[in-house]
């Protein structure tokens, strides 16, 4: 018998096969590194111009009558107040509706009802934001806002834009909240029912508190999305290119995102004095840092409830 005649290398497969393995691994690894490259490029493209802007701009122009970038007036409070109003109104719309929809889907809906209702919510989630902008300007503003408030700006205002952004974020709130609610173990519901609690008591005193970190995460993610939403405010905010400072949400408003889009639109390209161009990156950096901070916070909260159950 020549049982020991074969060589161990024969079992390792052909060298070409092994080389291909190495090549594939290198390719997929570099694909994963592209995501890091993207982050570096985002931070780099924002950072350089933003720093140049902040060193060149006359700092007193950052606190002035309004946002007129092509005239060198960059009042930040105009943008910040508008952003806060739109975000606040959006949350007032999205949180109750989204959370209630999540509670219904997770705690009350039958399997069949859920099968129909969830996809419809997902369709709403897929509607492009320009469409919500159009809807806010052409339907919500004349039919809802202007009929309640006579002094509302008819060419668009922060309330209409905020409601539009709110509608856009309902599916997001609903989907994250539903994830949080359905990850509450059934044993908790059964124990509550076992000691005689009604469904309402079980839902409000057991399930909601148990899911609280996930629900807060849903709220934070939705806030971040509302702050970063551009097109609804650009179309329905009523302010084109420039805006005077306004604290009344029934007036026209320019959020940080809409101000950025305005710098680019209208002239087909971002032009103007070097400072106007720079302001785009400065506002973009603030937006990036704020949304990033909120997302990291939400991420921690979501991981917390995943760990608990």
């Amino acid at each position, binding site marked *: 018998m020549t049982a020991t005649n074969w060589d161990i290398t024969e079992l390792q*497969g052909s060298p070409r096969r092994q080389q*291909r*393995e190495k090549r*594939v*691994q290198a390719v*997929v690894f570099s694909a*994963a590194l*592209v*995501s*890091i490259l*993207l*982050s570096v*490029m*985002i931070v780099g493209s924002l950072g350089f111009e933003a720093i140049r802007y902040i060193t060149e701009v006359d700092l007193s122009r950052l606190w002035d009558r309004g946002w007129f970038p092509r005239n060198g007036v960059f009042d930040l409070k105009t943008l910040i107040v508008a952003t806060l109003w739109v975000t606040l109104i959006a949350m007032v719309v999205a949180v109750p509706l*989204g959370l*209630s*929809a999540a*509670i*219904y889907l997770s705690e*009350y809906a039958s399997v069949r009802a859920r099968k129909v209702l969830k*996809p*419809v919510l*997902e*369709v*709403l989630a*897929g*509607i*492009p934001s*320009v*469409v*919500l*902008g*159009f809807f806010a*300007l*052409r*339907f919500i503003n004349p039919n809802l806002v202007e009929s309640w408030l006579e002094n509302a700006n008819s060419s668009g205002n922060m309330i209409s834009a905020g409601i539009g952004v709110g*509608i856009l974020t*309902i599916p997001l709130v609903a989907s994250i909240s539903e994830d949080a609610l359905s990850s509450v173990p059934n044993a908790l519901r059964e124990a509550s029912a076992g000691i005689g609690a009604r*469904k*309402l008591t079980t839902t*409000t005193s057991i399930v909601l508190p148990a899911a609280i970190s996930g629900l807060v995460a849903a709220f934070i993610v939705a806030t*971040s999305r509302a702050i*970063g*939403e551009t*097109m609804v405010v*650009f*179309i329905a905010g009523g302010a*084109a290119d420039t805006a005077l400072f306004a604290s009344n949400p029934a007036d026209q408003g320019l959020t940080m995102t809409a101000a*950025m*889009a305005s710098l*680019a639109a209208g002239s*087909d*390209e*971002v032009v103007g004095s070097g400072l106007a161009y720079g302001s785009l990156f400065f506002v*973009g950096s603030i937006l*990036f840092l704020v*949304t*990033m901070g909120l*997302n990291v916070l939400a*991420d921690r909260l979501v991981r917390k409830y995943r760990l608990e159950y």
Partner: protein
Amino acid sequence: MAVATPTTVRDTASIAESLRRKRDVKGVAFQAMMFLSLVITLGVLVVLLFTVISDGWPVLSQRLGGFLTSTLRPDAVDAGVVQGLKGTFYLCAIVAIVAFPLGIAAAIYMEEYAPQNWLTSFIQLNIRNLAGVPSVVYGILGLTIFVKGWGISSITGGSSPLAGGLTLSALVLPVVIITAQEAIRATPQALREAGFGVGATKWEVIKDHILPYAAPGILTGTLLSIARAAGEAAPLLLIGTISGIITRSAPWYDVTQVQDRFTAMPTLITSWAVQPDTGFSVENAAAAIVILIFFVILLNSAAIMLRNRFESKRSG
């Protein structure tokens, strides 16, 4: 003591009786409120669809053919969306060519190859953060790197579908990676072990067993990303798509137009919606929205149906 037992029995019976008679009013009201919120949300969707269809109806019913084939013109009555359709088509094609292979490859690395170390968790954290970056910030990335970047601008030709497509690819990449990762993670471990057991290499197991098994899940994510890319306007505004009039309208098959100035459906809708002329801002904008929504909802429904079928097949 002999009298106590009947009293207790009567009491329990009466308690049960009173519970049965007293309906849980608060509970029913709560459930109705929760259901009502869902109905309101879905009602908004219905009103929205009704509004855009009725606003766009004059265009859709009278000159749909001309609207789909004519170019951006100064008069609302003969302006059309053909350049927007071409732009969106090329943008989606570039996203499919760039973001899908890149995203799926990155997902394969993260699920099948990545060791458990700091670099892996850093990449994972980074992907999650990228998914939350506002789309307008991706526009800044596109403007500085793909439109004005040294060396890159001569390839993309400035504000072109190529620059826009690369920007949108960056935008959807994290979503493609995350959904592909979830699909790959859902493949049973036994599949891998069986493959290795008969002597297949890692790549052979991935290519012949894991990817086919995860394909429906991956496809769902890619369809959703295409729909997202088709509807995004903010990054395109920042990289400088045309909102006025373009004279050139290259035929569909002319691939060189990926380096030309362009417009796309969402940017075209935006520029129309804010015009003072209601022929543009109401009728044409709404008609263009109906066309865009039709494609986006088609892609989304395909993705949702695919996922539901896939889920019921796996569980059943």
